[in-house]
């Protein structure tokens, strides 16, 4: 259907409005002022904005809006301004493209414009359909499913914290593997500034700690042994000692039964079973601060506690940003654009080529 003149005129006006540099300045100024004020609101209300780094904007914003709409409203408002500004930039870019033959020398500037549009799309995409999760606690050998990505599992194969002689943490060397439908798809050493990036997933170390796993003992005739849950020790002919449980801080309930009292090392206790050729000989708790249980003494087992057994665990962050490649493309466009524009700036100046509004 052919458009009549006034409709054409209106469309033309709309397009001119979309390409208007004054509109761009108005939108950019509005976004700038909103974000300036908002950043201070954010700074003085850490309780509300604390989770913003741990989650994508798409997940964080709806909850935050329901909790503190007045304090958070600047975010969607400035987001809207930036979005309109990006649409405005797109119009300018399309307008330029339509006159490419005459204006190809300005490719640098317009690559910068294109890069900004790509970055806006990438941010929206990544924050609407991506996720951030963790930190996840994994000990060497542990494997966890990534719930947001069905079929994917993350395994920590080895972990070595690197410390300065003073004990200050330096780096966290994680050998990790990513499994997809029970097939290992990638394996990598992940450490600070060296994440595993695969299919939009970014896996990186967040922190680490040490887990109390059991206790080291000295046994006459045997030497040092580490007793941790699951370990089995052959003691003498036919006798074996199995560790059923370990508590770093054992308490007692009213009936005198041993119960966990805390996770810090205070009153360590091991639940042990002693098996003979015919079956269980003794079973019970050995609270390390108390004398060795009679069941063990009678079997001729002497355990001298030496030190706790600690194993390091790693805290890993798993993020997914499906827009990361688009963002990278935006970054490349902008970089190339800037380098180009450095030349065209002087050329434009020499030829007096400059739009005046």
């Amino acid at each position, binding site marked *: 259907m052919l458009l009549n003149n006034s409709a054409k005129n209106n469309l033309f006006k709309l397009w001119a409005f979309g390409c208007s540099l004054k509109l761009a300045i108005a939108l950019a100024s509005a976004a700038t002022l909103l974000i300036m004020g908002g950043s201070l609101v954010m*700074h003085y209300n850490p309780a509300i904005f604390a989770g913003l780094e741990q989650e994508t904007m798409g997940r964080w914003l709806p909850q935050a809006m329901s909790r503190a709409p007045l304090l958070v409203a600047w975010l969607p408002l400035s987001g809207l301004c930036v979005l309109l500004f990006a649409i405005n930039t797109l119009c300018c870019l399309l307008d330029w493209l339509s006159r490419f033959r005459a204006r190809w020398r300005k490719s640098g500037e317009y690559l910068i414009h294109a890069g900004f549009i790509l970055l806006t799309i990438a941010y929206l995409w990544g924050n609407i359909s991506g996720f951030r999760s963790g930190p996840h606690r994994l000990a060497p050998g542990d494997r966890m499913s990534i719930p947001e990505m069905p079929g994917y599992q993350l395994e920590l194969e080895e972990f070595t914290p690197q410390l300065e002689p003073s004990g200050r943490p330096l780096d966290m060397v994680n050998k990790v593997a990513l499994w997809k439908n029970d097939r290992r798809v990638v394996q990598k050493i992940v450490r600070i500034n060296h994440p595993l990036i695969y299919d939009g997933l970014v896996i990186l170390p967040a922190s680490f700690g040490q887990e109390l796993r059991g206790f080291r003992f000295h046994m006459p005739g045997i030497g040092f042994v580490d007793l941790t849950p699951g370990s089995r020790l052959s003691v003498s002919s036919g006798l074996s000692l199995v560790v059923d449980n370990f508590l770093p801080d054992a308490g007692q309930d009213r009936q005198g039964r041993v119960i966990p009292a805390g996770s810090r090392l205070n009153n360590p206790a091991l639940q042990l079973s002693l098996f003979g050729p015919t079956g269980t000989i003794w079973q019970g708790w050995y609270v390390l601060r108390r004398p060795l249980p009679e069941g063990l003494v009678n079997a001729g087992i002497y355990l001298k506690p030496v030190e706790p057994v600690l194993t390091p665990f790693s805290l890993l962050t798993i993020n997914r940003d499906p827009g990361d490649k688009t963002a990278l493309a935006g970054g490349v466009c902008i970089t190339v654009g800037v380098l180009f524009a450095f030349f065209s700036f002087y050329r434009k100046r020499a030829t007096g080529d400059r739009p005046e509004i």
Partner: protein
Amino acid sequence: MSKTLLYLLFAIYLMASSGYLLHTVWRRSSIASVSLILVFAGVILQTALLGFRWWTAGYLPVTNLFATLFFFSWALALIYLYFELRYRIRATGLFVMLLNLVLLGGALPRDPAVSALIPALDTPLFSLHIIFSFVGYAFFAMAFSIGVLYLCQSRRNTQLLPDLQTLRKINEEAIFLGFGLFTLCLVAGSIWAHVAWGHWFSWNIKSIWSVLVWMFYAGMCHAKFIRRWQGDVYAWLSIAGFGIVLFTYLGIGLLLESNHPLE
């Protein structure tokens, strides 16, 4: 780096600034030439000191306030030389070199020792991020100085300063180059954030204000096309822009707390 050399550097720039001051009073071009030679000498010494610090540390040492002020001052002196050689702006040097003295003077009482680099900063992306950022800031500082001088010139119309047209040209150029370099700083920073935190934009106050600086100067790259803004308005905007830069660089660290890796 020995403090004596730092004081020597400060003295050289101080003499250059005094020379420019005398030039504005006596209007002798020979004095301005001596000042320019002094700036040259200062830049050479400062480049050597920076190179030495880089060489001994094994990385570009820009991880604390002393080091960033020192680098900022070096970049500003270098950029001043560029504009001076290109446009012969002479008396303009007084204001730029005074600003440089403030930066260097801020660094002097601080400890110049270089500390071991923490692994989080041990990446070339960090060096690129910092170099582009401070060279960009230095261009913005230059634009600020030119903006102030533009306002003086538009009121006093003195022979000492370049004409308004030239000042406007220099201002636009400084803003454009500063914007381009600051853009590269943000690209390097975003890639770094992606590998360090797993997301390329972080909602911490320093990152937010860096984006604001970028938006502001992107706006200024366009504001010059608006005829009505080409004179005083543009000069005032250059001054306001530098205010945003200063708040981003110093204000956040001094007045607020940030979890940006360089705080």
